[in-house]
């Protein structure tokens, strides 16, 4: 493992009651890399995302971002008895930032079931993402003392929308956009938080083959333009194989394989997980 990893997930276990949703996950993303996380439905991919972004507190394990531990936890209280994962007692630090703090550090995400601000315009959807890094406080904002900053935020939003070819829609309500554009807008909004690492949760879900094709080029282009590292969950295998430099495969919460697209395609475990094992084999 080289050590230019921007993100490393180390021994992360997420257990809900007695159910282990993610079991001892180890995963890393190199700077500038596009990595895919795949696996059958219910394998724990989105749960892993939620652990990384602070939505869930992992039961055990730690997550490092830019070589700093940003999340760390160990089983506490009732979970001490219930815990059935590995590496019990390995971590003693407790650090569970809320999702906004994770975003502030430079990890942005999109959601599997698009979560745009539905009652607001395309423009405002992106502008909201600029709020986090604004220096104004509630008084200077109300009394319009930070006019210059507000203007800069608007210009940046304008520029970002222009780049993403969404400018002509800027006054549309977000909920009125067609599905594909809503996905694009969600990515644009995530980019507006100025992330270093972008987590995409099924960006191609619900897209037709042509849109999926365009998405490949799009993801590459944003990666290059914003010097991003990308971790994505995806079911479209064409897209995954074409775009990702490395792939992790999850099944029943555990990692069953990792490697380049070619390696994964020929991995027997992966084939078994997806197609099932025939009984007489």
């Amino acid at each position, binding site marked *: 493992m080289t050590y230019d990893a921007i993100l490393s997930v180390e021994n992360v276990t997420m257990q*809900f009651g007695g159910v282990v949703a993610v079991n001892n996950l180890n995963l890393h993303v190199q700077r500038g890399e596009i990595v895919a996380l795949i696996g059958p439905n219910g394998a724990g991919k*989105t749960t892993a995302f*939620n652990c990384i972004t602070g*939505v869930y507190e992992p039961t055990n394990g730690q997550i490092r971002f830019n070589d700093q531990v940003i999340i760390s936890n160990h089983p506490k209280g009732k979970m001490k008895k219930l815990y059935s994962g590995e590496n019990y007692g390995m971590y003693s630090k407790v650090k569970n930032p809320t999702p906004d703090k994770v975003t502030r550090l430079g990890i942005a995400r999109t*959601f599997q079931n698009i979560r745009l601000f539905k009652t607001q315009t395309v423009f405002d959807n992106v502008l909201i993402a600029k709020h986090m890094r604004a220096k104004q406080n509630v008084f200077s904002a109300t009394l319009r003392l930070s006019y210059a900053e507000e203007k800069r935020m608007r210009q940046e939003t304008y520029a970002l929308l222009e780049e993403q070819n969404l400018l002509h829609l800027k006054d549309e309500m977000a909920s009125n956009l067609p599905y594909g554009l809503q996905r694009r807008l969600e990515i644009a909004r995530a980019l507006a938080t100025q992330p270093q690492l972008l987590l995409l949760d099924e960006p191609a879900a619900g897209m037709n083959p042509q849109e999926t094709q365009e998405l490949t080029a799009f993801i590459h282009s944003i990666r290059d333009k914003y010097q991003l590292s990308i971790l994505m969950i995806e079911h479209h295998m064409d897209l995954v194989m074409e775009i990702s430099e490395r792939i992790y495969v999850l099944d029943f919460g555990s990692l069953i394989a990792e490697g380049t697209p070619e390696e994964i395609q020929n991995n027997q475990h992966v084939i078994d997980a997806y197609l099932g094992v025939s009984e007489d084999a």
Partner: protein
Amino acid sequence: MEQFIETLTSFFSTNLPYILAGISVGGQYALIAIGYTMVYGILRLINFAHGDIFMAAGLILIYAAASMPLYLAIPLMIVVTVLIGFLVERVAYKPLRSAPRMSIMISAIGVSYLIQNLALYVTGGLTKVYPAIPWISDSVTIGSATTKMVTLVTPVLTIVLVIALVLLIRYTKIGMAMRAVSRDFETSQLMGIKIDRVISATFIIGTFLAAIGSLLFFTNYTGVTPTIGAMPGLKAFVAAVFGGIGSIPGAVIGAFIIGICENIIKGLGWTTFSDAFTFALLIVILIVKPSGLFGEKNTDKV
């Protein structure tokens, strides 16, 4: 240690009337609280109008008893109250089933406002005297305390009704449907459960118990005013939260605890704070254990 027991016994003997009153009020709260907890369990709605329906039940009996004997008036009151509960759900909540949660809560507040104002109109703002119901209004003496028969009847009746309700929910078809709906609204709909029927049944049971509760509650009071239902209603809701919303035994235990504590506080001379105490308890519970004593924890899905 002995001294401790002595202070305890002296506490009980001096506070016996308050403890008895507490048990009695607790039982009445329990009967109201079940309506809250069941409706919340199924619709995730705080039925703000429930306390007012409870008040309406009191008024209905007053007016009914004025023109007919009690053995007719009481069943009539129960039937009319249940009908009101049913109609409120059909008219004010059903059309909003797919609306945001806030809308339906506002609708509940609107219904509460409407019932209170109707009561104000009908009574002309006068306090109406509740009829004395034979036997349960009679006085009895227990130890050092003299109290009404209702104080003894309430806990017994409450427990009998709760057992009946638990049996109903556990062993009948409609009970099973209720459990399914409270678990997962959409899925149970897909499984062919007639949601509207289940919800109506919930409101009917809830208001039936509130009607019985009103009978017991108002016997202890001199009269009924349009706003009298609001406080017991809110307290019963707190009891439901305290016991873990959705859990019937939880609501009953919560109600008894609140009834007893409240009356002991009154006994200590802190009457101003007897209402405030309930809410303080609510806030403590919500912070320490939001799922209540017997509630289930559920996490939001992202």
